[in-house]
């Protein structure tokens, strides 16, 4: 059957044909994606509501300024740009796989599906590194009892509040215990073992002097606890979609290799997997906007 242009004035709803002109499976994939869009939308809007309800929110340029193997270099937006381009590129290879499928070119579908899977794995690896970096980070921040301590970024701790003034830092240091002071001093020396041993022998006053005179000290208020929950919850839910997308793509790759779609006479399954994969990229576009750019 050759390709038919749709005649104008076609009566779609008069019966005898599908008014959407696509298979049941594809319509249902679209409806699933629409409902998933509302789920992600609800998460992101909830995050926006909480962010709008407080006076100070974490500045993404301070939270996300690290890059693998770059040490303590201040590189805002760099790593997330890499992640964004990885996902855009894997979207392109996916749509190329769909294109090859339209022309029944099995080798082409295999090649581009393989590249898409690699892109998905690369993205997940980046996310794993970023999460580890935040969860194991050490930031000097004011704790709820008014003392100064060392906090990572987790669902229970957010060290990304407004900056503390020098007077506030001195007052907070007076309330800190010896263990807290040793921890802060070690953090400022990047926690080298020898230094850590040395500082624990110092008195509280010596530690306070050393800390408050340090050029490296950057102390902040604690921020709203909700930050970690929203960040890890939403990027985690997106990451789970990427993960399941990679699994689906691997299944599609194997089915292509086994010749299932050639027997069937069409590569529509690749199109449906492609819809899901592009949706994952689409959601990332909005996560990128809400968490990293603004």
């Amino acid at each position: 059957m050759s390709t038919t242009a749709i005649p104008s004035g076609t009566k779609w709803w008069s019966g005898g044909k599908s008014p959407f002109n696509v298979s049941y499976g594809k319509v249902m994939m679209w409806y699933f994606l629409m409902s998933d869009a509302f789920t992600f939308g609800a998460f992101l809007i909830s995050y926006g509501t909480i962010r709008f309800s407080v006076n100070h929110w974490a500045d993404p340029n301070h939270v996300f300024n690290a890059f693998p193997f770059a040490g303590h270099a201040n590189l805002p937006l760099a790593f997330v740009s890499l992640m964004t381009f990885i996902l855009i590129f894997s979207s392109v290879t996916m749509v190329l796989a769909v294109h090859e499928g339209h022309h029944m070119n099995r080798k082409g579908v295999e090649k581009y599906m393989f590249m898409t899977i690699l892109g998905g794995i690369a993205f997940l690896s980046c996310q794993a590194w970023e999460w580890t970096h935040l969860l194991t980070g050490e930031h000097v921040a004011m704790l709820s009892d008014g003392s100064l301590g060392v906090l990572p970024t987790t669902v229970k701790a957010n060290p990304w509040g407004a900056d503390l003034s020098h007077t506030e830092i001195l007052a907070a240091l007076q309330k800190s215990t010896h263990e807290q002071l040793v921890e802060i001093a070690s953090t400022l020396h990047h926690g080298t073992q020898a230094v850590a041993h040395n500082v624990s022998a110092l008195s509280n006053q010596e530690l306070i002097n050393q800390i408050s005179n340090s050029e490296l000290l950057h102390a902040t208020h604690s921020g709203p606890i909700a930050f970690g929950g929203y960040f890890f919850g939403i990027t985690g839910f997106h990451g789970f979609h990427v993960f399941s997308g990679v699994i689906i793509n691997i299944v599609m790759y194997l089915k292509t290799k086994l010749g299932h779609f050639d027997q069937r006479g069409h590569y529509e399954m690749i199109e449906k997997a492609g819809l899901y994969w592009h949706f994952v990229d689409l959601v990332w576009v909005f996560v990128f906007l809400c968490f990293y750019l603004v």
Partner: protein
Amino acid sequence: MSAQHFDNPEITFQPDHSGGTGKIWKIFWVLSLLTIIELALGFFLYAKHGDLGYVTVLSTKCAIAILTLAKAYYIVSVFMHLGDEVRNLIMTIVVPLVLFVWFIIAFLADGNSWKNLRNTNAGSKPNQTEQIQKETNEKAEH
């Protein structure tokens, strides 16, 4: 290599897939360009942090959001081929998404209202919001 063929009663008119990959690569470059502009605006906000007025920051952020919507349009329309489907299918997906217009406006306004209530002790201390905003800004500048 022959074109694929659906033996499926739900598909009355076979879609036309005779085009090349030119359009795909064009959209790839469009998406990359839009992302680079977004990043440039993001760096502008970072580099000028503290020097910019409220209106400039807000309008830059709105510009980034509009560029994001443009990216979303290209992904859905070209990569997901929704633009090639019949109008009935397009409308059944796009029309429900209009709910987001209400959803976003209502909830962000609610968040903002909560901030005002917090800062003014539930309205008993009017004009506090601007003052606190000012203090926060001053602190951020130091």
